[in-house]
């Protein structure tokens, strides 16, 4: 009698493929409610063991039909809906619609309005990147990062609350100006915040960027090449991390960006680490922009048109865009001469960035997929509109 000793490999290896473990492909649903959803995004993964073969995102769980609603509202009333699309850069969303309407209707705004808008937008960019950094840490297991970044978010939020009155949904930048004027001690408060944030960005670097676990999880993972990024329509830090320096603030300067000197942060390989570090550096560049603009805000009125004037756009097609914290938000308006747009379309940055995951993720494991999705910085209501 002989006793045959088997190993686990013998059990798993199918006789038809000697030397290869027999695995079966299966679908896994990361449904709309799960820890790293960042909202309500459903992703269906086709997995082979733990390796991803295909990614099928299913958006639409927050689709409220904002574009249809905008056809019933006049141009001032649309602004409050834009806050609710990409709520982390709400002021920049407002600015996109305000800019398109102003350019189309021929409303000229003065330097004070432009400077205030720029400073507020850059403060919001720092706030948005701080939240992204904290959530990235939380997704990858470092919960402390979340607490640090929210502490700093609240400190910047105090300025917004004092001037605008709201913490998250701002409704501040209207076509024709801004809603409220800044307080006399605005510059001092912002300067204190800037010196604080400079120290905090260094702290972010010390806490996460130098961490060997984070570097192992992000370096070399999920590479998006430049040509694929451009063809997919990715914009914002995702495109800049792949090596192409497309930043609307430099390419077509709007607001007061021409007066400030800053660098466009560009990555080299397009992996998750580049997308991570591009945003950390962008925080530093935003601080630099605000420092240059905060001291001389020109005097003037903060609203060029009277508050409740009816804005009518001449008939035609208008398109304009701004650079939000996630990418290029474009607004396309087709007007038939009335007070309400006949068709309004938002070119949302997260919608175009999201589909990159169908190209980047296959071949990596589930844990890498979480790192990739966090590094793309998606805000789901912006995808669904």
């Amino acid at each position, binding site marked *: 009698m002989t006793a045959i000793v088997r190993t686990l490999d013998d059990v798993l290896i199918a006789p038809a493929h000697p030397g290869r473990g027999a695995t079966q492909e299966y679908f896994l649903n990361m449904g709309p409610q799960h820890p790293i959803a960042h909202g309500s995004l459903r992703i269906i993964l086709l997995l082979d063991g733990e390796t991803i073969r295909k990614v099928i995102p299913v958006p*639409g769980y927050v689709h409220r039909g904002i574009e249809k609603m905008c056809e019933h509202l006049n141009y001032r009333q649309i602004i409050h809906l834009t806050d609710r699309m990409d709520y982390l850069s709400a002021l920049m969303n407002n600015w996109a619609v305000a800019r398109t309407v102003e*350019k189309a209707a021929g409303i000229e705004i003065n330097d004070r309005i432009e400077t205030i808008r720029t400073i507020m937008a850059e403060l919001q960019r720092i706030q948005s990147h701080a939240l992204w950094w904290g959530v990235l840490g939380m997704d990858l297991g470092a919960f402390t990062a979340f607490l640090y970044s929210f502490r700093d978010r609240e400190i910047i939020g105090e300025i917004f609350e004092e001037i605008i009155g709201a913490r998250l949904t701002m409704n501040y930048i209207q076509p024709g100006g801004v809603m409220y004027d800044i307080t006399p001690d605005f510059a001092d408060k912002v300067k204190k915040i800037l010196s604080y944030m400079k120290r905090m960005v260094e702290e972010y670097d010390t806490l996460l960027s130098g961490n060997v676990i984070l570097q192992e999880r992000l370096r070399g993972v999920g590479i998006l090449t430049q040509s694929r990024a451009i063809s997919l329509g990715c914009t914002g830090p995702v495109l800049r991390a792949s090596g192409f320096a497309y930043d609307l603030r430099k390419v077509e300067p709007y607001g007061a960006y021409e007066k400030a000197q800053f660098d466009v942060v560009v990555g080299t390989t397009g992996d998750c680490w580049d997308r991570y570090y591009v945003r950390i550096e962008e925080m530093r560049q935003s601080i630099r922009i605000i420092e240059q603009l905060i001291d001389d805000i020109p005097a003037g009125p903060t609203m060029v048109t009277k508050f409740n004037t009816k804005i009518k756009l001449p008939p035609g097609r208008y398109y304009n865009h701004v650079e939000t914290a996630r990418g290029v938000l474009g607004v396309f308006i087709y007007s038939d001469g009335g007070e309400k747009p006949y068709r309004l379309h938002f070119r949302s940055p997260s919608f175009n960035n999201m589909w990159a995951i169908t190209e980047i993720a296959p071949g990596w494991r589930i844990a890498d997929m979480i790192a990739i999705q966090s590094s793309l910085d998606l805000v789901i209501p912006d995808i669904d509109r």
Partner: protein
Amino acid sequence: MDAEKLIYTIIALQPACRVKDQADRPAIEVAADNLPEIMETLRNDDRLSFDMLLDHTAIDHEPVAKFELVYNLYSTLHGHYLMVTCDIDRQTALAPTMSMIWSAAHWQEREIYDLFGIRYEGHPDLRRIFLEDDWQGHPLRKDYKDPDMLEFEK
């Protein structure tokens, strides 16, 4: 390239385009039959090289019974923009797909199909994207009636 030279170059290459005047940036209007060919030229020609499709949307002109497709293109090499419009019939609502030329069109066309009902010929995966698969109707059409939707105009 500035706007006039751009339009001149495009019309010289492809005489089947006409200039569109009701737009705030250089715009051309194309017929649906010539659309794939013209878009290929726009991307491949060295002086034009429109390699990024920023936005693709549609407008429902219900009184004249046609849909208008609008493409916003950008060239990363030269830094110029172009708006391309194309009218298609509202009854049949068929259009050629651009997803072979720009990958971004793959999903932007799915969104237009979902909300307008325009079907793209040659699209590899034409499914609804935001609404459920068994949703009746296409919401962004002007004649969309929904009893659940509380219509309110001020």
